[in-house]
């Protein structure tokens, strides 16, 4: 039974690692540890960047607009891609058939095999705006009218689920990210002030933060939402969701940052700088805030998926972003209906996307923690 020896040697190996930090001037990577791990961070960063650009340019990647309805095709299953047509001829480019709803049996769909519609790349379709500046009609892929391609099926209003997934991801992912930035910034500023100045300010801020930590987060979120107007426009709702989620979560980063600042404040080089007559502002900016960098970064990576989930939860309960603007939350709401939940697996796609994004953020957080040698937060 060599369990103790094994883990002990592992511990020693990790102790031998030099203190890593993101800024290169602080430490030159020596030996094995951080220099090799530096590459691993990309494992999480590249897919995350890919997902975010996918949803940022949703207009280009989505074949249709998020609000475009086709009332003849409610809850149509994903289009089938074919290679062989009814005459037995093989097509290199996959094609789809036009889907026609049989008049007598709603919910059942047939393929009209009289004509094939090959999938086109960079086709012209419904116009969309890129970055709110210029308008484009080019889509990554599509088929000629009157056929439609919907790789993830359609929802109850006959809207393309893939397009809504992309546009909804834009709302949910960026809401989470912005809320994380907001809450970490607020938390870091308040925490830095509390830790640096100490005294009554510290006491008051920490007592205040305890109030926020004393509430289960979802109750807190819903309570704050309860006190705000119920019916708001989608863009206001998005802003509201970001602000609520971001501000409600300020307490944890604030307390963590305060801890780091407290220890940084007492370092000899800070005292020396103060002795040379450095101002508070200079000390905070030059010596104290850089110390908190690692904690802040890790907190942001940790909070972003939680905040995405918070926005999804709010919208799921109809308290966040509302129709017709999609969010992963309000897209999942239709699953509360038995038929949709049991028959239409493609309506679960926002949930699957959510799992993927959470996994990536989780990976990012653990890689960051490893890299910056911060314990689990």
């Amino acid at each position, binding site marked *: *039974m060599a*369990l*103790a*020896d*094994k*883990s*002990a040697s*592992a*511990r020693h190996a990790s102790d031998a690692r030099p203190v890593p930090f993101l800024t290169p001037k602080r430490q030159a990577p020596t030996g094995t540890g951080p220099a090799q791990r530096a590459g691993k961070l990309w494992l999480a960063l590249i897919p995350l960047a890919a997902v975010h650009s996918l949803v940022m340019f949703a207009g280009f990647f989505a074949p249709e607009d998020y609000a475009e309805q086709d009332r003849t095709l409610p809850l149509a299953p994903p289009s089938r891609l074919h290679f062989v047509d009814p005459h037995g001829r093989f097509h290199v480019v996959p094609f789809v058939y036009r889907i026609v709803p049989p008049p007598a049996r709603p919910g059942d769909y047939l393929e009209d095999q009289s004509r094939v519609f090959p999938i086109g790349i960079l086709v012209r379709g419904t116009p969309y705006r890129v970055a709110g500046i210029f308008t484009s009609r080019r889509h990554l892929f599509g088929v000629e009218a009157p056929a439609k391609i919907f790789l993830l099926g359609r929802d109850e209003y006959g809207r393309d689920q893939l397009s809504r997934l992309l546009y909804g991801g834009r709302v949910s992912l960026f809401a989470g990210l912005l809320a994380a930035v907001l809450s970490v910034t607020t938390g870091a500023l308040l925490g830095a002030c509390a830790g640096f100045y100490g005294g009554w300010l510290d006491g008051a801020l920490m*007592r205040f933060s*305890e*109030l926020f*930590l*004393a*509430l*289960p*987060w*979802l*109750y*807190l979120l*819903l*309570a*704050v*939402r*309860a*006190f*705000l*107007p*119920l019916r708001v426009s989608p863009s206001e709702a998005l802003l509201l969701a970001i602000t609520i989620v971001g501000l409600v979560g300020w307490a944890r980063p604030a307390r963590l940052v305060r801890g780091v600042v407290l220890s940084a404040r007492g370092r000899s080089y800070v005292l020396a700088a103060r002795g040379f007559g450095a101002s508070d502002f200079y000390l905070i900016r030059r010596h104290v805030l850089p110390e908190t960098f690692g904690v802040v970064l890790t907190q942001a990576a940790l909070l972003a998926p939680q905040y995405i*989930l918070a926005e*999804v*939860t709010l919208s*799921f*309960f*109809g*308290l966040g972003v509302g129709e017709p603007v999609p969010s992963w939350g309000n897209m*999942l709401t239709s*699953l*509360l209906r*038995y038929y949709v*939940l*049991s028959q239409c697996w493609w309506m*679960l796609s926002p*949930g699957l996307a*959510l*799992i993927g994004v*959470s*996994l990536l953020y*989780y990976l990012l957080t653990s890689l960051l923690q490893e890299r910056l040698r911060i314990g*689990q937060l």
Partner: protein
Amino acid sequence: MRYYTRRLLHTIFLIFGVSVLSFLFMELAPGEFFDEMRLNPQISPETVVALRHQYGLDKPLAVRYVRWVQSVFKGEFGFSFAYNRPVAPLLMSRARNTLLLTLTATLFAWLIGIPWGVWIAVRKGKWPDHFSTVVVTGLVSVPDLLLALVALLVAMRTGWFPVGGMVSLGSSEWGPAHKVEDVASHLFCPALVLFLGSLPTIIRHARTAMLGVLDSGFVRAAQAHGISSRRLLFRHALPAAAGPLISLVGISVGTLLSASLLVEAIMGWPGIGPLLLEAILARDLYLVVGAVIFSTAFLVAGNLVADALLYRIDPRIRGE
């Protein structure tokens, strides 16, 4: 004893602070329960004014707060406009259901999570450890919302477990044994979701805590003395690792309650969660405040229990 008193005072201060904060927010909130009535042409404006006067909504904030505190001491926690009843009895029955659900899930999560964490700590770097890392990461990444939806789907598809509500129709006429069985079968699905939601955190913490202890000198000394590995693990190492795990009890109450709210709302379990959501949509603000205070009370109670346990177990804290 002084320690307990201080903790208790701190808790009371927290709950008091949360109530003040809720009232401040309520004051800032635009709109109220009677807005709908105002829009209704069949109700005269005088009636609305009279109703607001009856519920004391026309009084300034401070007066309303004092009245509310008085009603708390009477055991009413304010008045629900939508249900036309005091808030406390409404919340009490719901809180009991929430407790039943969360306690069941927590009990099983700890009973399974702790041995699991200990097991993989011992086999660090071997296949059980790697396998568990995959399971834990997977479970952490699946949102409770989705877990609940999938459980709902499975339950509906297979029909093995009833979904929605807490009791079957007509169960009030059954015998006690049958009733318990009925509630248990309704409990299974929501509790399973909560269990799966809280399991990964417990496994991870148990593993980390155990690894820390297995490193220490006394474990190796005990090993050298030839103490059997099971005895060593569960009699010597686990109690030494109990500290962080007990703090986890306190920390996880908040997450548990939040997850429970979601699960309750999706699965139709009659806990505090659905009541809070209804109250928000109806702008029944006293009920909202009541639910928030109740959830806070649960959370701080969890923390209090964890602190008291830590105080009992860890002599280092007593020394402070």
